[in-house]
């Protein structure tokens, strides 16, 4: 059976069984990265171009390794070293890249909507690696995979997502995916960082972290974007970490088998302290490892691989 989509733009576009297919296929790709020779020929002769118009370490490296382990050729372009900095529009850049016949473009972009537009206009596969605060579908998939790997299920889990929900594409993609798979979601933030219309999201909302901790199976901390400080969404890092930071005392309030997640990069000492980030409950580095595996699955499926669940 073949995968019905050439692109992956948004978790909103996927059905629950399609998300499950992706998660189910990922274990076999994860195994490849643990081999001595970390390479299979699945995408030999395919070209994957990574267009990153926003700084990224983890996501870009993860996609690049995923493509290489499937034997695809990869090239990465970032905003600073490209003609984007010379004023070329993103669609011109995309058409120019397209003229060089890539099979897949992985795009990270500071504003919402461009990956969707590229997917509609370009014949190659387009994978959204994060656009504005719209969606970051591969992050949500790797998060869900990590939860499923740890708990053996997603349905019935209670997942708390804590921090800047308003400006977070990671939170949005996770909400859409987790709800489709039957998890409960609690979003925790000061009211200034909750998006308008959140009452339609089919999630619980709390402005306090402490009452949520004893109930959650997963506590996912979002990065505090320091650049938001001057926009008066909250008064400062000290107050933020007092009310919303995950520290040792708060970790002790968590359920005994609950886990800590973070999409990175972490601001240690702001939204999460060392002892929380490095505690035995943290599966943050598992998320990173699983990121490569999830992206292998998605590149494989988007580039015409068949659905193969064992």
């Amino acid at each position, binding site marked *: 059976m073949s995968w019905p989509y050439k692109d992956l733009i948004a978790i909103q576009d996927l059905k629950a069984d399609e998300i499950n297919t992706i998660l189910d296929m990922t274990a076999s790709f994860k195994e490849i990265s643990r081999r001595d020779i970390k390479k299979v020929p699945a995408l030999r002769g395919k070209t994957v171009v990574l267009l990153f118009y926003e700084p990224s370490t983890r996501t870009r490296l993860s996609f690049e390794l995923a493509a290489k382990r499937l034997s695809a050729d990869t090239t990465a372009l970032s905003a600073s070293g490209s003609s984007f900095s010379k004023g070329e529009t993103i669609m011109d850049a995309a058409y120019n890249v397209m003229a060089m016949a890539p099979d897949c473009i992985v795009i990270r*972009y500071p504003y919402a*909507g*461009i990956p969707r*537009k590229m997917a509609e206009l370009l014949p190659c596969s387009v994978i959204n690696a994060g656009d504005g605060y*719209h969606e970051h579908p591969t992050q949500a998939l790797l998060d869900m995979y990590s939860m499923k790997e740890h708990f053996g299920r997603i349905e019935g889990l209670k997942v708390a997502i804590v921090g800047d929900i308003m400006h977070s594409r990671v939170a*949005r993609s996770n909400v859409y995916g987790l709800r489709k798979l039957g998890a409960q979601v609690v979003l925790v933030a000061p009211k200034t960082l909750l998006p*308008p219309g959140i009452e*339609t999201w089919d999630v619980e909302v709390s402005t306090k972290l402490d009452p949520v901790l004893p109930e959650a199976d997963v506590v996912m901390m979002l990065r505090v974007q320091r650049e938001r400080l001057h926009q008066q969404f909250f008064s400062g890092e000290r107050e933020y970490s007092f009310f919303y930071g995950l520290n040792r005392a708060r970790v002790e309030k968590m359920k005994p088998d609950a886990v800590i997640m973070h999409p990175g990069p972490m601001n240690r000492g702001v939204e999460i302290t060392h002892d929380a980030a490095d505690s035995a409950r943290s599966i943050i580095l598992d998320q990173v490892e699983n990121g490569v595996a999830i992206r292998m699955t998605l590149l494989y499926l988007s580039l015409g691989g068949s659905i193969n669940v064992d």
Partner: protein
Amino acid sequence: MWIRGGLIFDPANNTEVTGDLHIIDGRIAGVYPGGSPEHDGEIIDAAGLWVLPGLIDLHVHLRDPGLEYKEDLSSGGRAAAAGGVTTLACMANTDPVNDNPSVTNYIREKAQRVSPVRILPVGAVTKGQKGKELAEIGLMKEAGIVAISDDGQPIEDSAILRRALEYAATFGLPVISHCQDKNLCASGVMNEGTLSSRLGLPGLPAVSEDVMVSRDVLISLYTGVPIHITHVSTQGGIEIIKQAKAQGVRVTCDVTPHHLLLTEERVRSYDTNAKMYPPLRGEPDRRALIEGLRDSVIDCIATDHAPHARDEKDLDFDLAPFGIIGLQTLLPGIMKIHLEQGIGFMKLLACVTMNPARILGIDGGDLSVGSRADIILVDPRARWCFTEEVIESKSKNSPFIGEEFTGRVVRTLVAGETVFTLR
């Protein structure tokens, strides 16, 4: 010259008759219900057509001087003629800004040379539209402005607005106000709400418009000077204006055809031709605007014609400029509202003829004997598709491209001269 056998609508005299219309020396010489027994000179056969006063659009951006790559007085004038707009007021946000009589004179003189329709400049309220110091409002009035507005750069400082109203009243000029609290809007690009959160686009909350409508109404009440609120888009704004009018505040307002016909749903595909200020709002707001038209809270329909070049609109939704063109979709838009919402055509016609004429204090917008022979002929049954090919503007940024309309301007006369004929 005679226009024979058409259905003649005149909102100023509240008449709707089939008959003949006689024009002498660019003025209306007589209207003959049932037809005149004798005719001389040129005869235009209007059988089966509607004969209307030329439309008056009090909110247009023509980009000339300075941004002629988007539009100029010639192309904008042609677009107006093709849309049946025989008089328009052009906003001051040119480069340089129309904040002094030299720029006003340039616009007036060039428009007289190159534009087939009457173009009346709107002066800036403040120098450079910066909201700090009053512009040369009196001297611009001498040079021919018909109103003042800092449209697009709303006046934040309430004291400046107060002085502007009082100073404008000194010269008998109306003040047109674009209501937007810039701080509440921040970097917003679409209506704020559930959909903006879902699309990941920063929002422009309705309250940012409502608070400024309230302020403007209160300052108008306090000073006793009328104010015209342009492009109202929210349910809240309409409510405030309705209450103010009921209390005798001398406030008038206009709404755009696109806010009457479209909602924020059009943004779902990130189409930058659905990006304008004020943004397309939700369905409850659109309904409130339609009801506002029905019960006469809304005085005018104006296009906010805002041309932008293709390469500018081709950017990301966040970065593309606000605004769409509208001169050629004004009449078909009104026809659509008439047909879909059952609002009387005469009432809608008044919103684009006599009401804006009264607010601007200009002649035109009626078919009385002795009035300017600014007249349009409309085929009310023509079904047609609005395509890029019919656009006379230099810019093609319209969300209505591909839209089917009923009713089309087939001929436009300005002062008795034909300036547009549909081929």
